[in-house]
């Protein structure tokens, strides 16, 4: 119905032209509801205004509506389109109404513009619509300044609907409303727009989740990912989509909120290549130079809860081909490997999900979306014990994605630490293989092995023991750099100071010359963390990082760890016996019992719908302050 093709909008400015939209391609079928999400400044409103022919900037590309090219229309023709087949409800609703006219007059206005002179009909239709949006007849003669925000929003909706538009554009329809009013309006919107084609633009993910079949993620004027809404929110594939979902608070979500590292670029200084690359944790050189092409993946209806390897394979292929500029190709996607967070009420579009809710996932990423960093396949490890063997790890498969937090939970003796050490490359498995960035960890050349040691770090269970008591703080933190032979004295010193700054430890001479026995438990843990971070690893395996600390210090250490995980963008395997902590920190949780991962899944899902009896027992035993 509406096709947007290579739409580019440029504003002139003192600093040269600012691209607000950069070659946007979107399609909306009749009856479909498309959501567009993005941070403020991503170009959402510019897109809406351009669709309405109201963009003050220079517009290139094409927008066809029912086969008609909109960008070629004269301003007179635009007026009739705006009043008739396209209507818009804009943000900051209060300012849209003039205080000098009664509400009824303003609601009628678009109708009268379309059909001049048919006053009676207009009045009748306005009253009808006011009722429909839940305001009632008496509002016809009220003035906008006597109305609440929610009422104004309803009135605006009535105003948009009065010409019976074929397509409705909702720009932040409920953003400034309180939760209950918002809920009412959302309910109203999903009712009155049931047969309409709708474009919903919002930074509020729940609005889009409630209303849209398909959702596109807009960033700095570019569509980075587009997929059926429930798929996008439960399994985002683009690092930005995942970050967006992670940053959003929901009641059901158990994971700690995380902001997106860095700042959204100002329009005047759009980064070249992929606009997200300065904030992306997996950016390659190519991401800074070339604009990623949109790749097309098919999302099958029956794949929502299955987990297979195909997605990882496609990501792997994409990774290999990252050096080449890829043309739009079609991969078959099963489940995305993306680690995923919160629980969105995507069931909002109830019943009407098909046929729009499946179909294609568009992804604009040189690396094929979030890549897989670490993969353990069929890992076995046994220790000799009383003549026999203790099977510490018995055939574990596990993968870790870029920038993901994976919590490994289990009671002591379940094999967590053994598995963690194997994944970190500290110990070798008896059977099975660990792949780091698709390369087998235990069969690397010495050179590669050294490099992998830099990228894979482990924080040991008892940090006090992992720090030699003969070395002072400076020597401890600089040691990894010395071993790796990185930098000279000056740059090492700087690296040590940065690292200590990250973990919020003092950097003065006095502190640098302290020995471990002069430090508190929390400080020791942070020195150990600084030591691991000084090499700027891609993966950190943290083994019970807070087990021996009291609650307040534990909270600080964990918060710090997660903050750094977000800022530095490394992937984290958090080994803990504490399910509450695991759920707070992890995107995904793996429950380990007697050497096997018995259950694995997104934190929220696992905590709310545990499948395995053992997980349920762990949940019951999870720390709680409730008293009986």
């Amino acid at each position, binding site marked *: 119905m509406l096709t947007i093709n290579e739409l580019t909008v440029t504003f002139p400015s003192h600093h040269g032209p600012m691209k607000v939209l950069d070659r946007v391609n979107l399609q909306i079928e009749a009856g479909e509801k498309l959501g567009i999400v993005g941070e403020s400044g991503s170009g959402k409103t510019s897109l809406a205004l351009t669709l309405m022919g109201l963009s003050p900037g220079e517009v290139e590309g094409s927008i066809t509506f029912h086969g008609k090219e909109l960008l070629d229309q004269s301003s007179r023709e635009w007026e009739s389109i705006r009043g008739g087949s396209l209507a818009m409800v804009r943000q900051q609703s209060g300012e849209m109404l003039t205080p000098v006219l009664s509400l009824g007059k303003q609601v009628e206005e678009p109708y009268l513009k379309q059909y001049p002179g048919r006053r009676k009909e207009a009045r009748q239709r306005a009253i009808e619509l006011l009722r429909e949006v839940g305001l009632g007849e008496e509002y016809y003669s009220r003035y906008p300044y006597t109305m609440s925000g929610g009422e104004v929003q309803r009135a605006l909706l009535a105003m948009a609907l009065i010409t019976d538009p074929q397509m409705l554009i909702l720009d932040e329809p409920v953003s400034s409303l309180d939760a209950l009013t918002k809920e009412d309006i959302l309910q109203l919107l999903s009712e009155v727009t049931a047969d309409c084609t709708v474009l919903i633009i919002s930074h509020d993910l729940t609005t889009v989740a409630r209303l849209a079949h398909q959702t596109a993620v807009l960033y700095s004027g570019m569509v980075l990912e587009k997929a059926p809404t429930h798929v996008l929110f439960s399994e985002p594939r683009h690092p930005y989509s995942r970050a967006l979902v992670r940053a959003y608070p929901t009641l059901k979500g158990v994971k700690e909120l995380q902001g997106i590292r860095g700042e959204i670029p100002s329009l005047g200084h759009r980064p070249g290549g992929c606009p997200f690359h300065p904030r992306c944790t997996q950016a390659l050189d190519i991401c800074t130079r070339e604009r990623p092409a949109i790749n097309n993946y098919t999302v099958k209806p029956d794949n929502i809860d299955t987990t297979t390897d195909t997605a990882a394979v496609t990501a792997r292929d994409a990774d290999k081909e990252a050096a080449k500029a890829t043309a739009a190709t079609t991969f078959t996607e099963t489940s995305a490997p993306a680690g995923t967070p919160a629980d969105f009420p995507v069931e909002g579009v109830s019943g009407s999900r098909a046929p729009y809710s499946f179909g294609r996932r568009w992804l604009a990423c040189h690396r094929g979306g979030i890549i897989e960093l670490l993969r353990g396949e069929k890992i076995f490890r046994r220790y000799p014990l009383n003549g026999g063997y203790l099977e510490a790890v018995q055939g574990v498969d596990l993968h870790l994605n870029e920038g993901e937090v994976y919590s490994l939970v289990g009671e002591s003796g379940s094999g967590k630490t053994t598995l963690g050490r194997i994944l970190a*490359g500290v110990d070798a498995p008896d059977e099975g293989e660990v792949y780091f960035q698709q390369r087998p960890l235990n069969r690397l050349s010495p050179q590669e092995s050294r490099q992998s*040691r830099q990228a894979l770090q*482990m924080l040991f*269970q008892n940090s006090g023991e992992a*720090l*030699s008591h*003969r070395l002072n703080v400076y020597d401890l933190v600089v040691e990894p750099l010395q*071993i790796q032979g990185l930098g000279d004295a000056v740059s090492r010193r700087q690296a040590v100071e940065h690292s200590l700054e990250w973990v919020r430890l003092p950097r003065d001479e006095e502190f640098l010359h302290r020995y*471990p026995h002069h430090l508190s438990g929390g400080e020791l843990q942070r020195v150990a963390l600084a030591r691991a971070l000084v*090499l700027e690893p891609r993966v950190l395996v943290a083994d019970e990082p807070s087990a021996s600390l009291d609650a307040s210090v534990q909270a600080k250490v964990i918060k710090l760890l997660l903050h750094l995980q977000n800022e530095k963008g490394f992937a984290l395997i958090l080994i803990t016996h504490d399910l509450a902590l695991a759920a707070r920190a992890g995107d995904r949780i793996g429950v380990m019992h007697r050497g096997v991962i018995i259950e694995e899944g997104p934190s929220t899902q696992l905590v709310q719908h545990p499948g395995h009896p053992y997980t349920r027992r762990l949940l019951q035993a999870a720390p709680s302050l409730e008293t009986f």
Partner: protein
Amino acid sequence: MHVNYWDEIKKDNLGRTGLLLITVLAVVALGAPLLAPYNPWEYVAPSLSPPSWGHPLGTNDVGQDIFSELLYGTRTTLLVSVTAAFFSTLISLVLGVVAGLRRGLPERLVLRLVDVMLVIPVFLVALLVAAYFQPGMTTLIVLFSLLLWPPGTRIIWNRVLSLKHQAHFTAARQFGAGTAYLVGRHLVPELYPLLAVNFIQVVRRAVFMEAGLAFLGVFDPAAKSWGLMLHYAREFIFTDAWQWWLLPPGLAVSLTIIAFALVGYSLEAALDPRMRRQTYADH
């Protein structure tokens, strides 16, 4: 666990006494030519003179000043025992670390060799070999170094086995450290206290063996050594000369052994947390 061993020894009365004695012995050994009133190889007075102001311990059967002999004897004793202890400890360290880190054949070889060496009566072997090789200081140093390493090796091997599984070794390994780095930066420093204890024990044994061999006459007859003094004085025990000829070197040997033993005990106490807690409780 971080312990400042030096402080522990200084705090301990026995350790302090030992250190004081060793210091005195070292000063005497170094300053013998300045402190000695006479050249101990020259005939300076009638033989077998009793003590006098000129000769505090009298003279021996060939008229040499016994006090000067005693001072020069300190040099021999300390030089032989300390050098032998150094080399013997070095051998223990190398073999112990190799055995501890390279399990399998190297470990088995070292441990069996230690077992064999431990059943050999060291003193007897030393006596025979020294007698065969025209005993001098160098011979004794080499001999002691080669005979006294086994107990230390076993202790160090044992310690390496437990140390190498400590988290900070694993941590260093996982930063990409090689064996040489691990041994040099982490392992050997951890062994310092153990090496010190071992060193002191070997010194004690070497002092005793040196004196014993010399007493039995297996030593360069021209050298000045406490054992040799005892050897010569033995023939004159029927005269009064034993009081100033036999007794002083005997006391000197005992004192040296006691001095090292005291420091050794004190260091061991510092190493053993249980013993240390007791001493703290006493204070």
